């Protein structure tokens, strides 16, 4: 459903994506790993047009993603995003954050949206925190609100950029467990993560990105347990046995 065909992306003279070919199927969880600066965030951000790309093609169910076309707004309502630093709207409560998109972008009925938003917040374990402002919530709680905000759009897929790396260690688990549930329900997800154990458990596929190229691509088992590329081996050694 999310398809990259020979995608090239540069920031000025600096080429960051050097011909990406990949596909995330419906109901699949794809994990994107790679060293800092390898282009993981950029690859993700091209999917919902937060960045543009120079050549090749990214498509969602066959529809081309073009950051400069007005069709991008509709695409963004179908592909939600969860950020490393949550980016909740600070002037809105948790519930208002979740309701914002469905009401003010999709134009849905307020009462229905509220019921659904409450349900989403309950599911991520925040029934008690609906009327709290983001600053009154822990990082883990904020990220779960952000996931509920993404789900409230009833997206076809969710992009997650290192959803746990801004969290204190004791809060990583609560966010990963929400993501595990989503994976179980066959939510299509493209996740940038350094949580190798988590990737092993939930990922249908893993992409290892190295300096803007896909160095290795395959099942979680193949890439994470029997990596063939020396760069992947080296990277996995470093993230699983930090010095």
């Amino acid at each position, binding site marked *: 459903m999310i398809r990259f065909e020979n995608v090239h992306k540069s920031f000025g003279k600096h080429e960051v994506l050097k011909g990406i070919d990949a596909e995330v199927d419906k109901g699949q969880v794809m994990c994107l790993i790679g060293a800092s600066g390898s282009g993981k965030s950029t690859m993700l951000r091209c999917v*919902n*047009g*937060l960045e543009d790309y120079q050549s090749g093609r990214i498509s969602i169910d066959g529809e081309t993603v073009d950051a400069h076309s007005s069709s991008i*707004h*509709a695409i*963004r*309502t179908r592909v*939600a*995003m969860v*950020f490393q*630093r949550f*980016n*909740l*709207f*600070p*002037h809105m409560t948790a519930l208002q954050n979740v309701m*914002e*998109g469905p009401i*003010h*972008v*999709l134009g849905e009925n307020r009462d229905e949206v509220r019921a659904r938003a409450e349900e989403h917040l309950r599911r991520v374990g925040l029934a008690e925190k609906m009327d709290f*402002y983001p*600053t009154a919530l822990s990082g883990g709680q904020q990220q779960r609100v952000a996931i509920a*905000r993404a789900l409230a*759009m009833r997206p076809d897929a969710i992009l997650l950029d290192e959803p746990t790396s801004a969290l204190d260690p004791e809060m990583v688990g609560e966010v990963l467990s929400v993501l595990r549930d989503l994976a179980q329900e066959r939510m299509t997800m493209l996740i940038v993560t350094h949580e190798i154990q988590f990737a092993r458990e939930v990922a249908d596929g893993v992409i290892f990105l190295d300096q803007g190229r896909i160095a290795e691509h395959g099942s979680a088992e193949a890439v994470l347990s029997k990596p063939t590329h020396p760069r992947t081996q080296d990277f996995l050694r470093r993230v699983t046995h930090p010095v």
Partner: protein
Amino acid sequence: MSPLFERIQEYLPLLVTGLWQTVAVTLLSLVLASALGLVWALMRSSGTRWLSLPARYIVEFLRGIPILVVLFYIYFVMPELGLDLTAFQAGVVGLALTYSCYIGETFRGGIEAVDRGQVEAAKSIGMRHGKMMRRIVLPQAFRIALPPYGNNMVMLLKDSSQVSVISVAELTMQGKMLASSTFDNMTVFTMVAALYLCLTIPLNILMRRVELKMGAAT
């Protein structure tokens, strides 16, 4: 000369009518300047060159002209071009034009200080630029811009005395006339200064209160 207390009583009514004129000029030009300032700020942060460049040039142009010259121009030159304004109207327009630049820059600063992540979050749920500005960016930008906006307000109140040069009968003008007819400069201008302080000090206190409250709310 009559005793001080009697003189104060004698001058006060005239100065108070001037005070009300000052309040009227200030409030009207504040509303206009804020609206116009918001327009400049939105144009400049629109991401469209066709909007941001004109706004930048207008602001730079207006900021380069002394307020007195702006006032003279509107009051004395505009009638020759067919736009006849009363001194009061010309004063309000001149102040508003000049202050729209300062206030516009204040708003722009607020808009630019809003975390980039907010814009990305708004975009990522499919929001278009206008709605994103209205619902996500501006509410946060106003909060950030409030302290400097408060300063703009106090400056505007004080600069409203400039419109006395085109004979608007506000506080400074009334003081000047009263002083030249009574030669009692010390009493008159002390009273004028005190009356300005009656406006600026409460305004400062109010701004501090609002800031504290806003700071506590986030």
